[in-house]
């Protein structure tokens, strides 16, 4: 839509970013009289090179190069465990650089123009103003398949309690976390030191009711907060094929966290299937080394759920727990290690 490319003229003389002219960041030919000649040599996303912003914002742009948003290293790390050494090399050359890496976030994707998803975007955030945050036009576009619609309630069910209270993404996800620390190339969001934890705002032992205090104490170290406080179904993606995408269905799965094999938590289906990368010539020799379920952080938190109301939902009905019968057909052999059956409790 052309409106996404409209620049608000009123900001041109006021914002220091425009002092050196459009071409200082975007290149192109300012003397060109047609669209084609004016756009010759155009740099559509100047901040793809973080150094563009780093001329003045070096303290942010330099460490940003190590952040997961910039490197997209999480996408490589998520699948690389399934590859042989040779396959990883092929993946890096044929898939990661040409597909995954194109999805990385630049400074501008969050501060100037909404990121491009599937070839489309909503354009300039506010007429090319440089904004600090506008999550509905930035975070929501890249994270709009799963967590954001869960958070706002657009994926069904209720909106997350934090959303209902008026909180936004950056209230929990601090800039120190997603701007990178400049020292370590992280492989996964779990390695982010400043990543949000429920206990930052809800310290253990401060629950208001005795029932909640007992429940928290009993399950401490055995159960994630999500297992009881996730408000309902969340999005699971299946059957991803390179270049063709995946299909999605709502679901709710409880099982052992694949990262530690001892904590029970909410699991989300990983869309990678045996022939996901077949078109790139990658058979995934180590496919069975990783499961098809991964620990999930559904963003549809509720204070009271059916699990917080009654112990029976888990301990007697065993509702939503992963069983051998429910495992994905033709899935990874590693899935079996995530099956968990809660013990019945004496009445």
């Amino acid at each position, binding site marked *: *839509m*052309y*409106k996404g*490319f*409209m*620049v*608000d*003229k009123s900001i*041109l003389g006021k914002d220091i970013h425009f002092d050196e*002219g*459009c*071409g200082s960041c*975007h290149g*192109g*030919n*300012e*003397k*060109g*009289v047609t*669209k084609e000649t*004016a756009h010759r040599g155009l740099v559509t996303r100047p901040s793809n090179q973080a150094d563009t912003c780093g001329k003045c914002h070096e303290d942010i742009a330099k460490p940003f190069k190590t952040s997961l948003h910039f490197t997209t290293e999480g996408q490589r790390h998520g699948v690389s465990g399934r590859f042989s050494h040779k396959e990883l090399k092929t993946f890096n050359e044929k898939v990661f650089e040409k*597909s995954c890496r194109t999805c990385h976030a630049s400074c501008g994707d969050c501060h100037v123009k909404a990121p491009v*998803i*599937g*070839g*489309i975007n909503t354009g300039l955030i506010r007429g090319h103003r440089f904004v600090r945050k506008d999550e509905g036009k930035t975070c929501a576009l*890249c*994270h*709009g*398949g*799963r967590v954001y619609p869960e958070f706002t309630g657009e994926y069904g069910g209720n909106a997350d309690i934090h959303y209902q209270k008026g909180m936004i993404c950056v209230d929990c996800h601090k800039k120190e976390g997603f701007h990178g620390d400049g020292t370590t190339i992280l492989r996964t969001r779990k390695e982010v030191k400043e990543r949000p934890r429920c206990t930052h705002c809800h310290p253990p032992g401060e629950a208001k009711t005795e029932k909640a205090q007992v429940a928290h104490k009993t399950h401490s170290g055995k159960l994630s907060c999500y297992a009881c406080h996730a408000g309902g179904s969340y*999005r699971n*993606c299946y059957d*991803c094929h*390179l*270049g*063709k*995408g*995946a299909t*999605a269905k709502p679901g709710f799965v409880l099982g052992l966290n694949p990262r530690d094999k001892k904590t029970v938590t909410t699991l989300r289906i990983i*869309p990678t299937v045996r022939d996901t990368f077949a078109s790139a010539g990658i058979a995934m020799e180590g496919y069975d080394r990783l499961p098809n379920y991964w620990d999930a952080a559904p963003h549809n938190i509720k204070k009271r759920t059916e699990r917080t109301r009654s112990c029976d939902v888990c301990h007697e009905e065993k509702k939503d727990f992963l069983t051998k019968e429910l495992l994905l057909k033709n899935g990874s052999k590693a899935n079996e290690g995530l099956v968990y059956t809660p013990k019945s409790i004496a009445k």
Partner: protein
Amino acid sequence: MKTRLGLSLFAAVLIFFLCAGYLARALSSESPGCVKCHTDEQILKSLYTPPKLGPSEGEG
């Protein structure tokens, strides 16, 4: 006669410089190409070409 000719010449030169000055000012205040098109809704609308969409590779 000489004085009148001098005055006319002076007036002509003055008019020339005034016009040249005005023209230069008008040209210098003209926005560069990018600003001109990207701040004018009508121009931008006429130049806009919708993107060709390929298959989406995932749902984030």
